């Protein structure tokens, strides 16, 4: 909306505005209050992001200035690396499990306990507990659960009298274990979003449907779910963005193993970029992650906006 060009006759007005702004404290206010945020944000968010885009084209160990320009070689290497494919595929699996299991579970539970009663409040609190815990703590607790030597799994094997099994050391099973932990950790968050939305559905609409003889499933399908569609879209967006960032949970559980089977994009970035001090390579991974995140955000907004207007 603001004027981007200044015709000559408006220049006078502009300098007037500047003078007035300076005298009534607007300019000083702007000059005192705005720069801290701009400086912090530029220095620690935007510059590193831009540098990712620069370093990604270098082979650089982080010491001295990046000099060894390699063009797209980091990207070629990344897309040719089988572990990177595993990491991407694992991220896709997390998204699928979130959309197909976690969100329906969260919606079902939300429908069961969205009404404000004391019992419901207790269940709501219980289901939300994993979400308020640190991811690392959650990962550590579950690594105890899955520990076939000294942990809960060992105890279960002893009790049932079966041979010990090691879920996290199994190439096939390890990532399922990770996904169990992710569902355990986050379904409460999605449930809370749905509960907040369900409490906003007008009671008279539900009552009207009841009077017309609608069954409970029909009310859910035709009144409640359509009403909370925006909340479902938001929770899907967070599930996808969250899946792109999974890191903390993996480190205590499997640290990416066994034989790199449980890496996600961020653990891959950490393992093959930072711990090996391949700053250029890790930055290239960061660039890919950035592009995917932006695509998701743009894509989401397109769909969401369309639905909003239709």
């Amino acid at each position, binding site marked *: 909306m*603001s004027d981007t060009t200044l015709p000559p006759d408006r220049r006078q007005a502009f300098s007037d505005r500047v003078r007035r702004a300076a005298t009534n404290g*607007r300019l000083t206010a702007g000059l005192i209050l705005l720069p*801290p*945020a701009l400086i912090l944000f530029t220095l620690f*968010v935007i510059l590193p992001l831009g540098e990712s885009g620069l370093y990604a084209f270098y082979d650089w160990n982080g010491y001295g200035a990046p000099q060894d320009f390699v063009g797209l070689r980091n990207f070629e290497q990344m897309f040719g690396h089988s572990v990177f494919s595993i990491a991407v595929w694992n991220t896709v699996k997390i998204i699928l499990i979130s959309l197909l299991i976690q969100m329906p579970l969260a919606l079902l539970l939300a429908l069961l306990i969205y009404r404000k009663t004391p019992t419901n409040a207790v269940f709501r609190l219980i289901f939300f*507990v994993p979400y308020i815990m640190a991811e690392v703590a959650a990962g550590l*607790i579950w690594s105890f659960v899955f520990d076939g030597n000294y942990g809960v799994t060992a105890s279960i094997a*002893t009790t049932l009298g079966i041979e010990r099994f090691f879920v996290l050391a199994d190439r096939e099973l390890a990532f399922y274990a990770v996904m169990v932990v992710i569902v355990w950790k986050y379904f409460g968050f999605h449930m809370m979003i749905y509960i907040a939305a369900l409490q906003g559905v007008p009671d008279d609409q539900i009552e009207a449907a009841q009077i017309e003889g609608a069954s409970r499933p029909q009310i859910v399908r035709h009144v409640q779910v359509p009403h909370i569609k925006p909340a479902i879209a938001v929770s899907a967006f967070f599930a996808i963005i969250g899946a792109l960032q999974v890191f903390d949970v993996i480190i205590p559980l499997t640290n990416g193993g066994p034989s790199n089977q449980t890496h996600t994009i*961020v653990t891959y970035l950490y393992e093959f970029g930072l711990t090996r001090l391949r700053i250029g390579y890790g930055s290239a991974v*960061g660039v890919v992650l950035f592009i995917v995140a932006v695509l998701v955000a743009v894509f989401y907004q397109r769909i969401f906006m369309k639905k909003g207007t239709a």
Partner: protein
Amino acid sequence: MTGPHVWRNVARLTLLVIVASFVLAPLWATVMGGFKTNAEIRTAAFAVPEAFNIEFYGAILSDPAFWRYLGNSMLISSAAVILTLIVGSAAAYVFAQIKFFGSNFLFSYLLLGLMFPFATAILPLFIKIRDIGLLDTYWAVILPQTAFGLSLAILLFRTFFAQLPKELFEAAYIDGCGYVRFFIMFTLPLSTPILATVGVFVFVQSWNNFLLPLVVLNSREVFTWPLGMMQYRGEYVTQWNQTLAFVTLSLVPAVVFFLAAQKYIVAGLTGGAVKG
């Protein structure tokens, strides 16, 4: 009519109890594990301990390292909250109150942080912090956390500030009150709900953060509690009772904090989610 109704309720409660058990069982095993001998953990992980050994919890509570980790986290999280509230509200106030050339552009610029995950720029961030000479200091965590929290904070603050009555400012302005003074004397005191929401949100994020401290902190003197916990786990690989006692005790502040600030946390998380 009561027949199907009762059955439906039973089915509903059964499902809720099953899910609740799935949620609570690992936590129960963790809390109880801190009281058990390792042999007992291996054979009866879910049982109530035969005897409550308090030595493992005692060992953690009397370990100065445990308190140092918690203290470091407390310091870092509090500083991140204070800095985010001050810097974020100041900028948001300018956007809400003063229209100037390029203000929309700068506002959108500051919201870019909502677009991408923190991890994308972690390597250049590490290099930058190293070059500034902040590696292994509290600031290495505080400043980037504040910077990344600013986008959401400014978005929420500006929305809130814009809803405050305009007449108030006009009256104060006629009385000779300037923009900065008005911000400090009126806007901030009137905005405690949103300050609390954002503050709690930033605190929880900072308290639980793992990746950034992992990358920029090296010495145990400055470790935050998640790093300390992983360190502990590495030292006592086979002695789960020690680690479980540590995990349980480090979760206590989080649970207490959650119960105290539940209103703001739920508002911040779901509200922030909806707006983000």
